[in-house]
């Protein structure tokens, strides 16, 4: 069967199923809307920026952030993180020894997820995290201070940290990749 004819028959069948079954229609429309959102990402700087803020836990509110969880984001965007023992900019770059590394998605996982907490926060000392996400010339950079809680600081092995959001910057670079 020719592809065009196959497509026409498939679409006709989809329309019939949707007319007979509203729940099938709802599922199909939901998937379609997610696909439209995804396909608009490279075309709309607002959507790309929105997604990068989602990755940085910097959406306007928690409900807005949470509402986006069904949008798949495996290995999305170029995300980097850097961990420092001192506030960024305090140490002369010549003596600055941390190296940015790439992460697959949701770069704020470098302090929220279990393996990262185990690696960077076990010692109970101050840590500064710089995370960046870039996509087709757009870039968002966020800086976080993970401050150990004074009250629980010495109760080994329990550690409690407070997240302080230092800054978030969005750059729009004219060049497209």
């Amino acid at each position, binding site marked *: 069967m020719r592809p065009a004819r196959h497509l026409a028959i498939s679409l006709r069948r989809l329309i019939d199923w949707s007319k007979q079954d509203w729940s099938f229609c709802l599922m199909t429309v939901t998937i379609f809307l997610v696909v439209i959102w995804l396909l608009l990402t490279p075309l709309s700087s607002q959507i790309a920026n929105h997604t990068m803020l989602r990755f940085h836990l910097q959406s306007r509110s928690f409900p807005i952030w949470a509402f986006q969880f069904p949008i*798949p984001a495996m*290995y999305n965007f170029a995300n980097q993180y850097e961990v420092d023992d001192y506030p960024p900019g305090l140490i002369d770059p010549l003596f600055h020894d941390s190296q940015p590394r790439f992460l697959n998605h949701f770069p704020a996982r470098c302090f929220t997820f279990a*393996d990262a907490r*185990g690696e960077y926060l076990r010692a109970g000392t101050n840590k500064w995290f710089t995370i960046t996400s*870039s996509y087709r010339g757009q870039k968002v950079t966020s800086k976080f201070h993970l401050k150990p809680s004074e009250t629980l600081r010495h109760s080994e092995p329990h550690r409690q940290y407070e*997240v302080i959001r230092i800054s978030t910057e969005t750059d729009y670079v004219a060049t497209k990749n």
Partner: protein
Amino acid sequence: MLATEQDKNRLITAYRVVQAGILATLVWKISFFSYANAIYNTIEISDSFFPDLLRSPSILRVSFLGATAATLLNMLATSNAVRKGCCITVMLGLSILCIHQGSYNDMTFVTAWWCATWSCWVSYRIDQDSHRTLLQKSAFLARAMISMIILGGAVGKWTGEYWSGQVLYDIYFVDRDFWLFNYLRDTYSEEELKVIATWHSRNVVMIETAFGLFYWLLGNRVAAIVGIFILCSIAIFSNFLLFSVLSCLIALSAVGYFASQPAERS
């Protein structure tokens, strides 16, 4: 056996295969999850962005164990009322895991959530559609969901850093302890590795793009074969831990196989 009964058996088998896939997804990284449980009990992060409940390790534990137990029961259940109850429980548990501070970044729960949504829809339609029609409709929805999820991965890679191979080079080629990357590091120089990483990354971008855009258009049987082959190969050549993200999608792509069986046999 009557054709209608055969169709019902195929539908229930397909449904159980998907539950087995969700279960594999949830238990694949069980050693990591038990490590995470210990870490979350000892290193707490207070971030006002997340509501208190969605930072609690207890909520994380209950959601994960509840979703896993309900999936197991769902796979074994013979009553449709039990299936519906299990599906609601699984969806609730996975929805919490998708927005909890300790698990939001793990795509395992997002792929499992979509498969649970499919399961929920099937369990509510079993009594209302003919089994053959429901098999056809559920096979289409399975393909559409897989297409959308893979397209999500592809679109995020339509950027220079992936086309140049920079991202995958740093994540996998520099120091990832995995058979393929260990072999490549032992065999090739750093410069050669960068070239391999570039072509590997371009290959991933192109396959995911083609898969995401066109997979939903394939026929049932072809889609099942192509889906299982490509999804398995992603994990086999990158990272076995990816089976935790992909197992449920592999099972979901198998639905096409059950829907492609001949209709009339008695």
